């Protein structure tokens, strides 16, 4: 499966060295970051160097005055994907002193979701915590928070501002843990009903909180993922689950088997982002999820 995915991904590369979500579309941030990580995981220095220059060239072109990366076609930078971009730069060993990387890191530190005064509304959560939103001027959500938190924790430099933001991100994820463990996209309870966790968001939350694995919420979430990793059959859910389980040193064989079977059925919808996730997961035994592991 890995070699076929690698070939399909290489066939889909755009002339500018990036990837669009679907064939023929312009390069976008998320598939480019994932493809760069997937194609270089466990690769030699020459391959990594080639991919690194292509990716940093694109990221440099996409970087805004704020330092965040603007997904081409969008009018507003995507904070969550900027966090993913920072993680990819780290995975491809872009030096922390590189100006694009340094400005991106500072921008991720500076980005904040908006705050809401809690007044007994129907959504039970601490709305004063400002973690990371998808785009500026909106609320914090689990996915962008997990990407930004993980990328900051993986960064080589950590100043007081970054430390404070890491605290915000951890507080937000701790606040949003679902009752049985794991994470929904946003809230854990709305209109008096407990919301259920999902595989992909739980895997992301665990990756971001991997250095807090002894805390009860993280332990409960890991147990939930181990039990439910096969409940959502898709490239995204299975790949992220396999990566998270590997990082937590848990067996991922059954999840990877399911990923293979699923890939035969859906071919990742021919979506480069999903193909890259599946490729990264299917080569876990080689690289041990280094890009995600603290």
């Amino acid at each position: 499966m890995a070699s076929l995915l690698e070939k399909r991904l290489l066939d889909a590369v755009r002339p500018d060295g990036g990837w669009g979500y679907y064939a023929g579309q312009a390069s976008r941030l998320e598939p480019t970051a994932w493809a760069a990580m997937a194609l270089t995981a466990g690769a030699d220095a020459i391959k990594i160097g080639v991919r690194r220059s292509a990716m940093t060239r694109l990221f440099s072109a996409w970087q805004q005055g704020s330092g965040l990366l603007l997904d081409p076609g969008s009018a507003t930078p995507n904070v969550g994907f900027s966090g993913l971009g920072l993680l990819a730069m780290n995975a491809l060993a872009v030096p922390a002193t590189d100006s694009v990387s340094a400005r991106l890191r500072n921008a991720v530190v500076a980005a904040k979701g908006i705050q809401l005064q809690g007044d007994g509304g129907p959504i039970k959560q601490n709305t004063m915590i400002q973690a990371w939103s998808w785009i500026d001027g909106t609320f914090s959500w689990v996915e962008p928070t997990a990407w930004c938190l993980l990328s900051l924790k993986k960064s080589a430099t950590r100043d007081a501002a970054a430390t404070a933001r890491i605290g915000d991100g951890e507080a937000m994820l701790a606040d949003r843990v679902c009752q049985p463990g794991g994470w929904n996209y946003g809230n854990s309870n709305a209109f008096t009903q407990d919301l259920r966790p999902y595989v992909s968001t739980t895997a992301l939350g665990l990756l971001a909180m991997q250095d807090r694995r002894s805390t009860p919420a993280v332990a409960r979430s890991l147990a939930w993922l181990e039990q439910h990793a096969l409940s959502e059959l898709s490239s995204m859910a299975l790949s992220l689950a396999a990566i998270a389980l590997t990082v937590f040193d848990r067996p991922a064989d059954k999840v990877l088997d399911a990923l293979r079977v699923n890939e035969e059925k859906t071919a990742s919808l021919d979506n480069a982002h999903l193909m890259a996730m599946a490729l990264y997961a299917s080569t876990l035994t080689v690289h041990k999820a280094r890009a995600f592991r603290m």
Partner: protein
Amino acid sequence: MLTRREVLTLPFAAALAASCRREPPPFDESAFTVPRRSAVGLFPATSYDAGLDDVIFRGLAELGVDVRGKSVLLKPNMVEYEAGTAINTDPRVVAGAAIALKRAGAREVVVGEGPGHRRDIEYLLTATGLFDRMRDASVRFVDLNHDAVREVPLKSWFTGMRSLSLPVSVLAADLVVSMPKLKTHHWAGLTCGMKNLFGCVPGAVYGWPKNILHIHGIDQSILDLTATIRPGLTIVDAVVGMEGDGPIMGRSRDVGFIGIGTDVVAVDATCARIIGLDPEKLTYLFGGGRYLGQSDPRRIDQRGENPDRYRTQFDVIDSIKERRLAG
């Protein structure tokens, strides 16, 4: 900093009514004409196995909908998968519509959706069975969350926003067909043809959920999206609806029809009345009836079955009870 209550009360009817009445209104008046009369068809369908392509084909003919030579994008409502629930437009209705529209002469039919809640579209497609239904009907899927996008000016600006990036597949289609599930909605009261258009806003640009729409007001966003996308046809899955804490956590409720119409406001207003909600108390329908379509029941011509056949009272959460029809 906004308070939770301020965020929740932003869309209430009084504010929107005031903005609808103020001079000038937040839309180009010359660009919109409320039809003097609109037709809405209700066609019996008590089961998802009841030849829905035939039901929809007959409905299109009865309403005189001409799709010959057109490229059609079907926009179902795919939100979340939970076995045995009525969260999503049933894939059999989507496949039935695709077959019917092809039979009616559409040049191309694709299915497009960009779930606002669950971003894992591959999971949703396979778990719901839509993936297999589309393959069987030889229909292509367009992932609206990750499609190429183009920034376009909004045709009304109740939200205060002047433009949005929208998927090129939506913008390029000759005919966008909104294919909602008939459900109550814990914020908006009702989710049907108009609210369904939230799924046209690309998550890869704005995130999941499409939080920018909530920040600018759900009702206001529904109006601006409907004004800009202008779905030319609405096909409602009201075979089984959802009552209570919709759009996800509610209960299934048998209703028994497929609703069809070219005026999405008229379709939504008709469906609202059938389930016991007052369109004049649903902020976006109140607003939509003033510039997007016909919401006056005296000016809506019913085709197929009489709405009285299906009239019922959906259970709603407490905060929505004041939006029920009187009596």
